[in-house]
């Protein structure tokens, strides 16, 4: 009954400068759902990639169905029934859903693919998952959540003995998560073994039979989920006791309520819908909406990353014209993007160079004054508690949390007036999240106005002073923190309620 489907024995893996896996022993029994948790950089992704043939281990061996195996490439592993749904979207934008699902394994004899077979199977699997789209829709036209389901369908379409899901719920809505769990349980009943990687501990506790906790490239322990609580897992992950708390808001009396920014009938070109809102000094204002409801577009348009049709922006009653991001930066209006690896950082450059970049943009003189720059960088690194071995370390090698602190911190050579934060905690570990919350609250206490969008509603409720909900590119509601509940915010964000917030 409990013979392991896959067993990893004494596996080690080194990358330049990092020991990613140290003597790891890990095994999964047939037909179980096995959780894998750990902070970013704990080695989960490396472990998965060793199992799936992307990386080759330096030491140790892998037993699959009781036999020693060497997977030379992902296709080797796939042939043996090991499928992985990766965290970064592994889809091709200009292929259709059906073509993506069968990528690497197109049906049909010889050189030609069989379109009919491809679409027939795709339709069948889409129907079984209740996924209502035409199979020939281009993946580029799907929402992030829908793309995640395409990834899962891609893993399911071929016989899988071992299905590895790497953070599958990060981009999903609550009802989509439910749907996914139903699918996973169904697979389990069919005898498929599932490895489930997630940062969301309640999900781990809900869906997994067994959970393995990793820390610094080592296995901390493997437990039955029924014997653990969320706190236990967190403590094992970080090796110390952590409480997930949100920093306290200043009381109404202490807070200055001066108007910082006013946006009137602001119309982003891509939506064509006007939005108006106000931001007060020292306020954390949440823009909450489901994926693609305009909250991100408004942020990016304010920073002039996307074109704007009309509208007025006032900063401290001064009317400002922002035509390029450079203008925005000059006015002290800063945007940090959701995809920090693509848009937020120059990954292969050093911490020093990343932090220096915005300073150089602001600096009037063209000569680089190293000593001053160094001083500012050191200050920022200590203020934001960015953990680096030295200033010349590549940001590529930092953990997600530290990368995010660079993304935000680099703008603080001079204090900005308004921060627009797009998913500031996406894909970073619990410890770093708490640190980011603290940083945001401290900044707001110093009078900076912060607008934040996070798809994690609990987090929004915890950190925001006020939330504006977005639905179909319009602001549908305004909720003060005293009135925050998930139900109310969701009702506004899904358009079922509206207090028609308009100026």
């Amino acid at each position, binding site marked *: 009954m409990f013979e392991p489907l896959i067993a990893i024995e004494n596996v080690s893996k080194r990358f330049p400068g990092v020991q990613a896996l140290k003597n790891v022993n890990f095994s999964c029994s047939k037909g179980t759902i096995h959780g894998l948790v750990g902070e970013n950089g704990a080695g989960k992704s490396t472990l998965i990639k060793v199992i799936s043939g992307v990386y080759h281990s330096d030491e140790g061996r892998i037993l699959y169905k009781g036999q020693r195996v060497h997977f030379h*490439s992902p*296709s080797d592993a796939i*042939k043996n029934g090991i499928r992985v749904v990766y965290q970064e979207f592994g*889809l*091709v934008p*200009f*292929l259709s859903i059906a073509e993506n699902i069968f990528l*690497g394994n*197109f049906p049909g004899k010889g050189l030609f693919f069989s379109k009919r077979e491809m679409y027939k199977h795709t339709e069948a699997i889409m129907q079984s998952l209740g996924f209502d789209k035409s199979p020939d829709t281009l993946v580029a*036209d799907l929402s992030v959540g829908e793309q995640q389901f395409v990834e899962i369908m891609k893993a399911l379409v071929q016989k899988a003995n071992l299905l590895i899901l790497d953070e599958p719920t990060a981009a999903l809505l609550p009802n989509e998560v439910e749907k996914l769990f139903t699918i996973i349980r169904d697979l389990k009943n069919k005898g498929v073994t599932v490895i489930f990687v997630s940062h969301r501990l309640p999900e781990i506790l809900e869906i997994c039979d067994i959970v393995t906790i990793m820390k610094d490239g080592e296995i901390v322990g493997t437990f039955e989920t029924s014997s653990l609580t969320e706190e236990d897992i967190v403590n094992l992950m970080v090796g110390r006791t952590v409480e997930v708390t949100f920093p306290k808001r200043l009381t109404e009396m202490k807070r200055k309520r001066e108007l910082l920014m006013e946006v009137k009938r602001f119309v982003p070109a891509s939506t064509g819908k006007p939005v108006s809102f106000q931001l007060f000094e020292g306020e954390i204002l949440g823009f909450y909406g489901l994926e693609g409801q305009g909250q991100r577009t408004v942020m990016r348009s304010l920073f002039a990353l996307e074109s704007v049709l009309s509208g007025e922006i006032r900063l401290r009653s001064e009317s400002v014209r922002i035509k390029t991001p450079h203008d925005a930066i000059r006015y002290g209006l800063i945007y940090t993007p959701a995809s920090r690896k693509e848009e937020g950082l120059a990954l292969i450059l050093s911490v020093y160079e990343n932090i220096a970049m915005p300073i150089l943009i602001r600096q009037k003189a063209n000569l680089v004054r190293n000593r001053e720059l160094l001083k500012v960088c050191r200050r920022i690194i200590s203020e934001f508690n960015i953990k680096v071995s030295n200033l010349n370390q590549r940001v590529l090698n930092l953990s997600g949390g530290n990368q995010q602190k660079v993304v935000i911190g680099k703008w603080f050579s001079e204090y900005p007036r308004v921060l627009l934060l797009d998913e500031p905690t996406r894909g970073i570990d619990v410890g770093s999240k708490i640190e980011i919350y603290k940083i945001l609250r401290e900044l707001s206490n110093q009078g900076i106005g912060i607008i934040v969008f996070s798809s994690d509603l609990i987090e929004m409720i915890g950190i925001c002073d006020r939330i504006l909900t977005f639905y179909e590119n319009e602001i549908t509601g305004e909720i003060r923190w005293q009135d925050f509940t998930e139900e109310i915010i969701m009702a506004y964000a899904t358009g079922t309620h509206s207090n028609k917030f308009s100026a």
Partner: protein
Amino acid sequence: MKREKKLRSKRENWQAPVFAFTALFLIAFLFSDSFRTSRNLVNLLVQVAPLALLTIGQTFVILTGGIDLSIGSFVSLATTIAATTMAESSIAISLLLIYGVGLSIGLLNGFAVSYLQMNPFVTTLATMVIVQGLTLHILPAPGGVVPYEYVKVIMYTRMLNMPVFVWLSIGVSIIMMIVLYKTKFGLNLYAVGGNKLAAVLSGVRVRQTLVLAYIMSSLMATTAGVMMVARISCGDPLVGQPYTLDSIGAAAVGGVSLAGGRGGLIGGLIGAFIIGSISNILNMLGVTPYWQFVLKSLIIVAAIGFAIRIKLMQGAREK
């Protein structure tokens, strides 16, 4: 089948080039007496055919996210080898030799780009110079002999008033369309160019796909050269030079994204017709060949810039 068309047109983004080509053609047709003669129209096809073949190969490579700068020099090389060996040995042996050389250099390009992970731009720039050097060594100036029997078959034999040359190009184009639209290799081209990591993780043989794309590209260029030598009846070490930029321009004008992963042959071939007609029209206007280089390149650059702007606008609207 309707939905298939819709999918393909979204992927290929070919509406703008179709419109541009129709407009260009109509204007020339209405305002130039000499343009609308059937002789000129056949002549136009003869002129466009080699560019069309080169554009097919270029499109394959660009779809993978690469670029092939060497194909123009292949055309020159093919004409010089043909003009120096066909008469001496036999046509068959000469063709075998030409395709052998084409195949091996394509293999070299593909191997360098995929297995050695060299930059396609640098790699094919180097092969371009190598091939150009070889060509000038074989024949420093236009000359050599092309057997009349070969020219007769390829150029002077006509079916429905069109030379075999044109029919062959049409045939090859159709085959290549089937390759792109109906084979697994075709879809893999999009995958490699659209998201290479996804292709690797899905078990697509990325390296083989890349090598094959570059081989296709050099074979298309070789074919164009083999046909070209019948048209000009001699070997010319510089005849192929303008074709490299022309083929890149044709692909880009035809909606093939230079970043890879988007576009297709229908667009690419229309692009070839647009670029080819521009040459033809400039000829009709009596512009000297040297000024034609200048003007045509300016038009190509402007057209690529225009195509990018349209794409940006569409992108904003789609969001």
